[in-house]
């Protein structure tokens, strides 16, 4: 099962998007607790 370059980029983009999403929610929690 080989991955094409586009597919690797897509996978990384998805992981990055979810990472940003989690970071945003983490910051949201801090902001709401202040």
């Amino acid at each position, binding site marked *: 099962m080989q991955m094409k370059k586009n597919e690797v980029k*897509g996978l990384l983009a*998805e992981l990055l998007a979810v990472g940003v999403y989690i970071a945003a*929610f983490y910051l949201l929690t801090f902001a709401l*607790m202040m």
Partner: protein
Amino acid sequence: MNTFKSKFYSIVIISYYTGFVVLGIAFLTLIPLATSLLLREWNPFFDFLITLAISTTLGLSLILIGRETRENKSFVQWKHGFVVASLSWVILMVLCAIPYALSGHVYSFLDACFDVMSGFTTTGLVLTQDLDHLSLGLNMWRHMLTFIGGQGMIVLALTFLLKETGGAYIFYVGEGKDINLVPNVKGTARIIWKISLIYLLIGTIALWINGILIGLNPLSAFFSGLFIFESAWSTGGFAPYTQNMMFYHSFSYEIITIVFFILGSLNFGLHYAAWSGNKKEIVKNIETQSFFITTFITSALAVIALSKSGVYADAVSMFRRVVYNVLSAHTTTGFNNVYASQFAKEWGDFGILIMVVAMLIGGSACSTAGGFKGLRVAVVFKGVIADIKKLLSSERNVKLFRFHHIKEQILTDGLVKVSALIIICYMVTFTIGMALGAYYGYPLSNAAFEMASVTGNVGLSIGVTTPFMPVGLKVYYIIAMYLGRLEFISVFALIGFIIGGVKKLWIK
């Protein structure tokens, strides 16, 4: 041919395809069978051998009954697809419950069926006892069923076992996944499985390494990583230990699971678009936008409500205990890192209400997640806005309303109506179950929480789901999980098919 077009025409077709699905499950038992053999777990080994023998015999018998389908190259109609999907799920539930029942970890065969349906539908509620001492073979079976249930069992079996897949798209729809990534169904199935297996590899390795770092031995860390990934990706919620995510007691482990259960709750069409170079789809898609808005609102409200009550003192524990569980509920995963009694005693009615709403909304359509689905919520919301705009504008002004989901689409009244109808079906199922829970004597908030978890195929529990709950409630929960996963239409088709058959016989 005329003889073939007799009253048994449909039964023969249904039998043929159902036989292949059953045979597919028989093949799958080889995986836990091999696991038990390698780990020298002899009791589970024989349990799986018995299941393999029964499934193979039944599958081959059904194919034999329906062999005329192949000889006559019969055309599969929509009703056949729906009935095969819904009927197969019932047959598979009974077959797959055999290893559970033989293991001695369940009190009754009904409990075994409950756990299998919970796994297939990626719900995650558990009646199996003493999970901490369950064999690795049976654990492999539990998590494999939830993983495969999330991707679609019928499609898997039919696309890989049948040469002719002309009508296979019908089975996709029958199984609650109206998805056509590429024109041919085998291609679509391969794409879905490629995405899932690549993530399986990445997720298992990430959790395996993390498991070793938190002190698990390498073998146990590997199996934990594999099982937890399968549960996270399929938004299932099963875990190999009774304490679920609390067993690992690790923030990093929790973060990794969030990544994969969010990815698992996204539409396969979105994954395919991103992997095909259209990365902007992640931000532009109406479903991801709807998911972001609803998770933002529910998480914020839960944090505000629980910070007022002072249960969680600092932001880190608030994120780990509140935001984690809200996201787990919203993606319909069901991983939990607080005890069921804590939901009941510490979260308060408002906290429970937020969780109920999050669980009912659920993840994306054509993903492994349950609930109404973000797409339907967004379509109905846009439909309401469109109607208000139409009322406020001049009558001669005809305006088209659009939304972006993989491509630009026009918001039609029909689409809004279908989405609203499915949401109503979910709400009716939820309301009846909640009333039933209250009838059996559970507090209304507990009955609502548990029923939202069942209807949305979530798996979080507030303590209602136990082996000692009333049999009527167990049966209703099984039906509700099944209805929620197949999104009603297939099950209605099966009921219609049975009633139609009985009616014909009665008239004759």
